[in-house]
């Protein structure tokens, strides 16, 4: 046992949930094999969230399956553990072998969303690694970052030696090979990065030439792409505590607010046979009691029924459950309702009226909402509905339309079941204009306006029995927009916010709006510059990234939105977004 591990064991009993910090999960790969280079995945959120991330499990498996490389993990320690590490003069350590982050060849952060930026710095700070790449000498590992936020990496790019844009399966290995070569041949960090630039998807912030573009990395052969059939099994309860099957990447729906829908194009499906095989292997190797399906719109997966059929006997034999998340109303069928467990159903109409749904291209009609009746026939008594407030062109009528949908469902339920005890839970987020979507130029409504619309809806819903209403924080939404559409000027703001105490911003108990307001002020940056409408002719901070979908297409979609014209689902024919230049779109 190394000295660090011994010291960690001694402080573990003074913190909450010590099992977060010991590792030793079932299916942990061999950490003692001879290797050429060592990678540490850093997840800037707590263990239970990080362990639930499929992307990290995939990449962890890819690297550890390679004979030359080892990957370890590190999750953000909860503040009590962070304080204990400092108190005991211990650096942040990897989970598997209690190795300081500084001693790895590459440290890679998985940045899942904007409110984790402060934790990026929290982890670097605990690891005694300087924040800015320019301040780190040869003695420090290569610090990189990837994940969904790499769609606009500019706010955190100054902290990274390189940013990995797109899908990491091939990119991570290519980078590690280069780093291993560099180690053996005595290259400097700059020499390694100069070569890393040539890897598809790798952006080296210090070396991007004028007018240069970085093309997003895409796994072209998704059917045969590696998948972790022996994923790590957590020893404590985590958020997604089950075997997860990824059915396909990309999305055919083209909802105009959805970043993932554009960023993960082209659409690539995995065959139901392969998915079923992976599902069985995962259950056998982990013992999980549940398989869940993961993709942007699961019920649009063409092989869904075949997969269900293939897995059903196995599921019954093993007495496990099979969950169907993220359902689209238009593709929901009675068979689906009957074959899953009758607890609660989740749908996302996103907007209250047909007009606004046309604007955002959520191709769900009022008739399709009546589809939920099939679920009532199958025995469901509870429905969760997701909506967004503050969408472009939204009026009060659209907001009141949400209450109208609830009333319609109550009526429908009564007609079918002759009972009145339907539970509807309405959950509302604030619209966040995200980069690489047709709405990337839109303004976000002001804080006051958010609160007014929220109160309007709450009042309307209060009049309907059996409807509960929950709401996503207004201030965090403003910060999310600013960070999502930010440029390099925001790096010092993030540093300042961290200095003022920002961390775990995605946790309501830790989020402190005043700190961020102060940080923007201290750095002389106006948050409004990032939250207001952006002119269409302006060069955007993320324009240098080629995600496949062209800017022209996004702009065209924006203009269609304002005319209330929808775009057909990609399955009905190609809309020419441009993403298939990066890899074949398997549904066209």
């Amino acid at each position, binding site marked *: 046992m190394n000295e660090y591990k011994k010291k960690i064991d001694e402080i573990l009993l003074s913190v909450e949930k*010590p099992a977060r910090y010991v590792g030793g999960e079932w299916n942990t790969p061999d950490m003692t094999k001879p290797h050429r280079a060592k990678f540490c995945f850093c997840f800037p959120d707590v263990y239970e969230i990080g362990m639930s991330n499929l992307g990290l499990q995939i990449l962890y498996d890819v690297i550890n399956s390679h004979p030359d490389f080892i990957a370890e993990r590190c999750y953000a320690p909860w503040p009590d553990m962070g304080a204990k590490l400092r108190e005991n003069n211990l650096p942040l350590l990897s989970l598997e072998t209690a190795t300081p982050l500084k001693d790895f060849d590459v440290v890679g952060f998985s940045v899942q969303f904007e409110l984790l930026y402060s934790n990026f710095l929290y982890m670097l700070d605990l690891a005694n690694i300087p924040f800015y790449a320019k301040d780190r000498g040869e003695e420090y590992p290569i610090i990189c970052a990837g994940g969904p936020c790499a769609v606009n990496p500019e706010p955190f790019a100054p902290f990274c030696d390189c940013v990995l844009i797109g899908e990491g399966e091939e990119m991570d290995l290519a980078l590690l090979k280069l780093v291993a070569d560099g180690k053996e041949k005595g290259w400097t960090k700059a020499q390694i990065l100069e070569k890393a630039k040539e890897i598809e998807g790798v952006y080296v912030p210090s070396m991007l030439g004028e007018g240069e573009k970085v093309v997003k990395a895409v796994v072209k052969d998704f059917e045969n792409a590696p998948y972790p059939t022996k994923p790590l099994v957590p020893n404590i309860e985590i958020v997604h505590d089950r075997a997860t099957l990824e059915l396909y990447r990309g999305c055919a729906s083209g909802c105009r607010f959805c970043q993932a829908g554009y960023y993960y194009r082209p659409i690539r499906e995995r065959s139901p046979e392969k998915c079923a095989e992976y599902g069985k292997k995962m259950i056998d190797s982990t*013992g999980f009691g549940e398989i869940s399906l993961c993709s942007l719109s699961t019920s649009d997966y063409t092989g869904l029924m075949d997969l269900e059929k293939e897995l059903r006997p196995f599921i019954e034999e093993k*007495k496990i459950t099979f969950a169907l998340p993220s359902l689209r109303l238009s593709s929901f069928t009675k068979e689906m309702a009957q074959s899953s467990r009758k607890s609660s159903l989740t749908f996302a109409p996103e907007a209250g009226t047909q007009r606004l749904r046309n604007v955002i291209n959520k191709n769900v009609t009022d008739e399709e909402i009546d589809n939920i009746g099939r679920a009532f026939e199958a025995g469901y008594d509870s429905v969760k509905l997701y909506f967004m407030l503050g969408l472009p062109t939204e009026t009060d009528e659209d907001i009141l339309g949400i209450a109208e949908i609830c009333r319609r469902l109550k009526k429908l339920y009564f007609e079918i079941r002759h009972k009145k005890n339907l539970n509807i839970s309405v959950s509302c987020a604030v619209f966040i204009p995200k980069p690489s979507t047709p709405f990337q130029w839109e303004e976000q409504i002001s804080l006051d306006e958010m609160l007014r619309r929220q109160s309007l809806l709450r009042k309307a819903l209060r009049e309907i029995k059996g409807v509960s209403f929950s709401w996503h924080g207004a201030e965090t939404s403003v910060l999310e927009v600013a960070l999502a559409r930010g440029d390099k000027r925001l790096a010092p703001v993030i540093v300042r916010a961290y200095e003022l105490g920002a961390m775990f911003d995605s946790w309501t108990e830790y989020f402190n709006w005043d700190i961020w307001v102060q940080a923007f002020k201290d750095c002389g940056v106006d948050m409004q510059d990032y939250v207001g409408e952006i002119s269409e002719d302006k060069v955007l901070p993320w324009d240098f990234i080629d995600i496949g979908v062209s800017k022209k297409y996004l702009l065209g979609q924006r203009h269609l939105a304002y005319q209330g014209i929808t775009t057909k689902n990609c399955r009905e024919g190609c809309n020419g977004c441009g993403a298939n230049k990066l890899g074949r779109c398997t549904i066209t």
Partner: protein
Amino acid sequence: MIVLKYVKTLDARFISHIDLLKHMSRILRRAVVPVKHSQGFNPHALIFFSPPTVLGVNSYAEYVAIDTDMKGEEVFTRYNNSVPEGLKAIEWFECAKNPNIQGKSVSADYVFDVDYFDVDLSDGLTVTYKKKEDFVTEDISGKICGTFNADGRLGVRLASGNNNLRADRLATALNEKYGKDIKVTTIAKLCQYVLVDGVEKSVDEYLRETP
């Protein structure tokens, strides 16, 4: 019904009892041990545990009773192929029905990593600990069933089951009263005792005698 006696050491000693309860179904599923389930709307696996051992303590006397038709030797082997080092089974027993170890537990032996010394309980022994939001002071001397010399180390028998004394609380009390430095992570639980027909015996003995 097969009862496995297993250890909870190394990293596994930091897994809480509740988490381990949930985890056991997974272990048995990946070990392909067919566990019987309760009837009803929400069927659950019929597995039963010995009383919880406090977080951080090394235990060499944990028990899980599994309702299965599989032979003990087979369950033992399969289980051991599906758990990390810190949860290995060391013995197995067979019995006709749930032995209810939890309900029958009365005491347990622990060894503290400190040279043996006389623990004076004549004036009681108090410890203060946090219970929910409040601090409580308790005289724990009545829950110490005895002390013994365990190869030069301090051995203690503590009340277990309904009237439980947590080993870490005794360690705190001894550290305070005698200026010792007993670390919870060095405490070892060696034996669990149950009360059967008025007689206190080790769980192993009880299981060997139970048809």
